């Protein structure tokens, strides 16, 4: 978190707070209020939808819930306005949390389906309000409601409310952006399954983000009820709100904390300048045209462009630094750092798996597997393709829930729990096909795991630590690059660095060597040995037998989901069952 930015937001808020006392015409206050209004709505939408990628078309519902909470309580029930504001926030947030608690349980409701569902909720809510005594049809007047005095005039008071809320919204948006919570949300955006496996409590985080987003929309609604002073269902729940906030956020840049605010200012001003003149119709056409042109040339939004420049600059600086520091090395190989060796034990079991089964609608991918992994060892897990090795990794990392059986890690049962619990208990994994978070730099990818994995570090701490692991994996010259800019070898090592940053007790390596050249394999084998030397227990799934023989202390062989042999590497490979599994039975 940068103090400058927080102070900047506060300073701008305070400076604008003097405006009503400078004798500006009421018209400007109203215009600026509308600006704040759209800023709040767009920024609050972005906290869920921009950060996590769950595009909602239902912002109008939460905004409307806030409007109607205030309108009903102040206009009909006679509450003082300020007392209705908490109610507006609560009603909207509660609506969001109830919706989220149901929707986020259904893992297939992502992307378009989530957008549709939230849109449908808007219509349902509008119908309910229209047909029940909350509104009943004619709309609600708030003419008689007293406006709390915050400025020299009524319009100034509403302006001040908009200003205070907008400042608060920006502070919250920035705080989330720069916090561990926000990092988790961005990880969900890029790859939710991986985020969960890396230790992000995705369900809870999405729910928090939704609650904050809805609560702020409700707050904006409560104030807006006072501003419009006559509330109707058709105005409140029209498609304008959800559509505008989406447009503003994309235009400004939805991966940035202030992007939606920039978009809100641009669109509101554009609409004002072009439609207030004589040829309002042509003005609107001009707004449409400008939108098209801006998005064609700036697809990441205004602030996306800015962060793009900054990113490129950082990458260039890092590359130049690497080039001048080590002119002999090719860009591929930065100096490999050694981490201090730690204790090395073999005795008690770290992981115990009993009777583990996993079935996919009839197909038994794992069938009654019982095995133990001892502290400090490297256990090789081998078997022909389709034998259940990857399923084993997926179950033991918590990604799949087992159909039957027990998983005991350090004596504690983990089976049936969410994947982030596995990560927090100290289990980390790599993916056979690397799955980095594509919008995060190498450094952020590694740091993210430090924050949410077994280490549970703060953001600042994790960023510091991540440097070490990146050096260990020989990627320090690419720290600021995005994963898409890496080659396969580098991406595999990024997977390793990420798994290490979790400071795991148990590391599950899923075919880290596949696709690497013989030279790269040697490098990787050496690195795995060094990881083991630090005291990490490793389960090593691999087809490259040379590596299996060189690294493993023990071997387990799976075939058709069942365990067929285990023990010392060379002994196991000579067992008849194992030969049969790999080569087929001799029928002669």
């Amino acid at each position, binding site marked *: 978190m940068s103090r400058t930015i927080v102070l900047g937001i506060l300073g701008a808020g305070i400076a604008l707070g003097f405006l009503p006392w400078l004798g500006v015409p009421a018209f400007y206050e109203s215009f600026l209020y509308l600006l704040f209004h759209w800023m709040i709505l767009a920024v609050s939408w972005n906290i869920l939808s921009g950060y996590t990628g769950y595009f909602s*078309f239902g912002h109008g519902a939460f905004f409307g819930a806030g409007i109607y909470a205030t309108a009903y309580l102040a206009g009909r029930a006679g509450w003082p306005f300020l007392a209705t504001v908490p109610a507006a926030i609560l009603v909207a947030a509660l609506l969001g949390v109830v919706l989220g608690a149901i929707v986020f349980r259904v893992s297939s409701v992502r992307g378009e389906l989530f957008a549709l569902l939230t*849109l449908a909720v808007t219509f349902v809510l509008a119908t309910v309000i229209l047909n029940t005594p909350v509104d009943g049809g004619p709309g609600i007047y708030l003419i008689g409601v007293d406006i709390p005095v915050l400025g020299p005039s009524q319009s100034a008071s509403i302006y001040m409310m908009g200003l205070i809320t907008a400042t608060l919204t920006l502070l919250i948006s920035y705080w989330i952006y720069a916090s561990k919570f926000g990092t988790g949300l961005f990880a969900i955006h890029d790859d939710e399954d991986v985020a969960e496996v890396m230790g992000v409590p995705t369900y809870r985080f999405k729910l928090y983000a939704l609650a904050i987003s809805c609560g702020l929309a409700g707050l904006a609604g409560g104030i807006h009820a006072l501003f419009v002073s006559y509330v109707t269902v058709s105005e409140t729940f029209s498609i304008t709100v959800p559509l505008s906030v989406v447009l503003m956020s994309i235009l400004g840049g939805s991966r940035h904390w202030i992007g939606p605010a920039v978009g809100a200012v641009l669109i509101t001003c554009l609409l004002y300048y072009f439609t207030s003149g004589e040829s309002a119709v042509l003005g609107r*056409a001009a707004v449409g045209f400008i*939108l*098209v042109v801006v998005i064609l040339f700036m697809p990441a939004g205004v602030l996306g462009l800015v962060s793009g420049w900054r990113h490129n600059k950082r990458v260039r600086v890092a590359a130049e630094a690497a080039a001048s520091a080590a002119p002999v090395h090719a860009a591929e190989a930065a100096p490999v750092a050694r981490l201090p060796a730690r204790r090395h034990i073999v005795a008690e079991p770290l992981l115990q798996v009993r009777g583990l089964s996993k079935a996919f609608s009839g197909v038994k991918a794992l069938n009654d597997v019982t095995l133990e992994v001892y502290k400090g060892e490297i256990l090789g897990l081998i078997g022909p393709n389709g034998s259940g090795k990857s399923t084993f990794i997926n179950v033991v990392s918590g990604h799949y829930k087992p159909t039957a059986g027990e998983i005991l890690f350090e004596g504690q049962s983990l089976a049936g729990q969410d994947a982030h619990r596995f990560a927090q208990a100290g289990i980390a994994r790599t993916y056979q096909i690397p799955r980095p978070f594509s919008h995060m730099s190498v450094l952020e990818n590694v740091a993210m795991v430090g924050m949410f994995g077994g280490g549970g570090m703060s953001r600042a701490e994790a960023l510091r630590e991540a440097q070490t692991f990146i050096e260990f994996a020989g990627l320090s010259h690419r720290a600021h690059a995005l994963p898409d800019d890496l080659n396969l070898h580098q991406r595999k090592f990024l997977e390793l660095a990420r798994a290490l940053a979790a400071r795991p007790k148990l590391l599950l390596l899923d075919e880290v060597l596949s696709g690497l050249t013989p030279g790269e394999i040697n490098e990787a084998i050496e690195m795995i040995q060094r990881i083991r030397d630090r005291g990490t227990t490793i389960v090593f799934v691999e087809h490259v037998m040379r590596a299996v023989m060189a690294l493993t202390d023990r071997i387990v062989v799976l075939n058709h989901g069942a365990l067929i042999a285990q023990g010392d590497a060379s002994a196991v490979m000579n067992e008849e069952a194992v030969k049969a599994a790999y080569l087929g039975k001799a029928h002669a």
Partner: protein
Amino acid sequence: MTLPSLNLLSQSILSGFFIGGMYGLIGLGLGLSWGLLRQINLAHFGFVFLSAYISYHMASVWGIDPLLTLLILPPVFFCIGVAMQWLLSRFHISPFNSLLVTFGITVMIESLIQYVWTADFRKLQSSYGEEKFTVGGLFVPVPELLTLMLAIFFAFAIWAAMRFTDLGKAMRAMAEDGPIAAAFGINQRLLSFLLSGACVALASVAGVCFALTFTLTPTQIFSWVGVVFAVVMLGGLGSAVGPLVAGIIIGVSEAVAMVLFSPSWAPIVSFSLLILMLLFRPGKA
């Protein structure tokens, strides 16, 4: 709640089918470009209205038979669709940015309509407009029937084309995995032009039907977005028959809710239905 007569109920179910046909016809082109081109084309609604206004103009001012405009407008709109696709593919637009670009295009169309035809209500007066006949005590308005029949015809024609022709198979392959399809010799660029053109041509067909049935006003463009989006996603993105079926389901449930409760309760039935289907039968879209 009073039970309506059987006749009233069946009449409203019939009208649900008709409005469902309209939903399906508008949703067809929208869903195809969403599912196969990965573009959320808000301008689809703009094109529907533009076509409705042009056919209104042709019929009312130039005295051309509205059914004849069904032959004139689609080819013209096909070209518009190709031009739009050229623009979007030239700049490699992502799905959610396509929403933004096409929103801008829609605003431009809306302004154009307002500039040419003003914001007043317009109604196409034609010999078909008021024509009705009775089948077993039920009124069947001709324009609505035409809409439904066109919706059914296009849904099944496109379904058959996607399933049985090489062109259709190529389009499905392209939607599944563009680069791989290209590697097997499929001309993605040409296909996407064709598809986008066809979708916008479908919008123009829906527009003519729209002009025959409804009173036109430019601000209505966005009031159709919600329900047609729902129809498309319920029916399955990229599906040809899905939007029609979903449109009829939503249309009928709305119409039944109107007679059973009151017209203002109608949306809750269709959208609650939608929410339940999404939660309990997920993975359809």
